[in-house]
């Protein structure tokens, strides 16, 4: 058994009175591709936002490579409002900010592509190298870091070559076709040198051909960059093709987990996905 990269334990995210993620535990092991599926509004993106520190989970803990990214328990207003489980289980508070979490090796893409609009393809990726800099404000301004700067640029170029965006590197990021924008977002995430890559609906809006390309691409980068991947997706072809394991959630709760075959045969998943049947 390979080692754990990401571990979520009893994670609950509650907004006001709404429990978006309910007592979710999951594991992702080194080198795996794991999918998170579930109907719209099931809380999948919220899980991503909790892992990356955009939201501070109400209860539970998250670990990356044995290091605690988050540990929290209901406090303040939530003390009374809390409607999740395992209330007393956690006593420590550790909250890492999104930028710290990225530095520790988690990168992500977004459901609605969030590229840096005013910048070129090249600049979009280059800026993601900023967090691995050794220069400071002074050396960077007065170009005393020219060696590092040159290295950043050549690495960026190399990355763009690998993902097949070298020929459009000077174009405005948002002028690219949809599929390439997705690819660019992944390249940008890769530039932060992650161990764990989170992909939020990478195939949204793609036709079958593009989806197939993407499937191959994800496999490819997993091997090349020695990544562990957690992804959210609605295109079941892609999910079933690519995943080592799948977690299915609905209403923020885990309803099933297992291999693609197991998930496809799971009645709960079928109900949640195709919808409740008339004669239920």
């Amino acid at each position, binding site marked *: 058994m390979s080692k754990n990269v990401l571990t979520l334990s009893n994670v609950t995210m509650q907004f006001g009175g709404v429990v978006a993620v309910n007592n979710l535990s999951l594991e992702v092991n080194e080198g795996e591709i794991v999918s998170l599926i579930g109907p719209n509004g099931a809380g999948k993106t919220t899980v991503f936002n909790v892992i990356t520190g955009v939201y501070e989970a109400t209860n539970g803990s998250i670990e990356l490579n044995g290091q605690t990214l988050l540990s929290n328990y209901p406090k303040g207003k939530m003390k009374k409002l809390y409607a999740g489980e395992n209330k007393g289980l956690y006593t420590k508070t550790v909250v890492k900010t999104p930028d710290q979490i990225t530095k520790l090796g988690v990168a992500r893409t977004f459901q609605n592509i969030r590229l840096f609009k005013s*910048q070129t393809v090249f600049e979009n990726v280059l*800026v993601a190298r900023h967090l691995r800099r050794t220069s400071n404000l002074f050396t960077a301004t007065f170009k005393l870091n020219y060696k590092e700067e040159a290295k950043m640029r050549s690495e960026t170029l190399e990355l763009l070559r690998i993902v097949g965006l070298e020929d459009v590197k000077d174009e405005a990021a948002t002028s690219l076709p949809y599929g390439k924008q997705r690819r660019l977002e992944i390249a940008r995430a890769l530039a*932060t040198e992650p161990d764990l890559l989170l992909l939020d609906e990478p195939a949204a809006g793609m036709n079958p051909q593009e989806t197939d390309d993407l499937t191959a691409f994800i496999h490819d980068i997993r091997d090349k960059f020695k990544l562990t991947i957690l992804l959210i997706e609605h295109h079941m072809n892609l999910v079933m093709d690519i995943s080592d394991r799948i977690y299915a959630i609905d209403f923020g709760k885990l309803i099933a987990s297992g291999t693609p075959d197991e998930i496809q045969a799971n009645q709960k998943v079928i109900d949640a996905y195709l919808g409740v049947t008339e004669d239920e």
Partner: protein
Amino acid sequence: MLEKSKKKINLTVSTILIILLLFGLYLMELFLSPSNMIFIVLQKGVIYALVAVSMNLLNGFTGLFSLGQAGFMLIGAYTYAIFTIPNEARTAVYQYFGGGLIKFNLPVTISIILAGVMAAVFAFLIGLPVLRLKSDYLAIATLGFAEIIRAIFQWNALGPITNGSNLLRKFPSLDSTGFSKWIQKITCDIFGKTGNVTGATIYAFIASGICIAIIVLLINSTYGRAFKAIRDDEIAAEAMGINLAKHKQIAFCISSFFAGISGALLAMYQTTIQASAFKSAMTYEILLVVVIGGIGSITGSCISSFLFIAASEWWLRFLDAEKYVGGVKVPFLRSGFRKVVFSIIIMAIVLFYRQGIMGTRELTPAGVWNWFKKTFIKSAPKKSKEA
């Protein structure tokens, strides 16, 4: 390779242009009367260019809508003035405060830098609470801070330092710096007399120019890219490992540093300063300069500064003078009309020309050359078609 040669062209041409510019300024100083309107436009214009660029760094490149520029200029202007008023003049300046508390002075250059540092220190302290605020709230909080700073500097209890609500004067102006004296001396050596040469304009250009150059270098560095990322999408920037609080604070402090320096230069230009002049209207004016030039364009801010000053101080002056053509009074022309026309022009730009002069583009020698080439090459086949 192409990239590199383009950079080289830009660098060489820019250097040549700068030398030509400084030489041109020198010739102007030599041949034109120091009271010529052009010098007012050039001096004030270049100082405004610096403060506009510093504001652009924040509003245009980092996406932080801050309206505190006048406050930081005030801090800079006062810091400069307080430390450079000659000791023998202090009794006269601080006549109501027993000659003031500070009994020493610092060299001009050091005082100017100190002006920036003081503004940056204030910015750091202000930034701690307010930089977490979003767009409009940040704007109004920084505007508020500028007003508070203005009140503090006018406070009588601080009179021994700030001279309360009275004028500060007698500090070295643009034409009495060591540099200016040096230029005057050289002129004297060459031509046997100083003539018109004061060195004031050249000094303003060099000081502002160095500052703007540093800002440009910063924007083109990895930090500058991080600022732009924050402007474009805070959430994505944070997900790329950029520490928002830290980078916003850096941009805020640096912007204020240069606003402080421009305040010092403005003090030198005006020869007297008073806290009550640094109102929010001043910040609005600078913001309009930035918008007219193009939010996110350094060269745009510079160009629009000169246009703004030239239009408001010079070109539209005639609108303020009553005029008779053939014995009939031209309608509307009288004191104040200039400003009305001017604000209508500004509104028209804001409404119909939203990108400003430059948009987010920059004017570079290579760019101009390319544009030149393009229009030339494009027009060539057209001509053959016509023929």
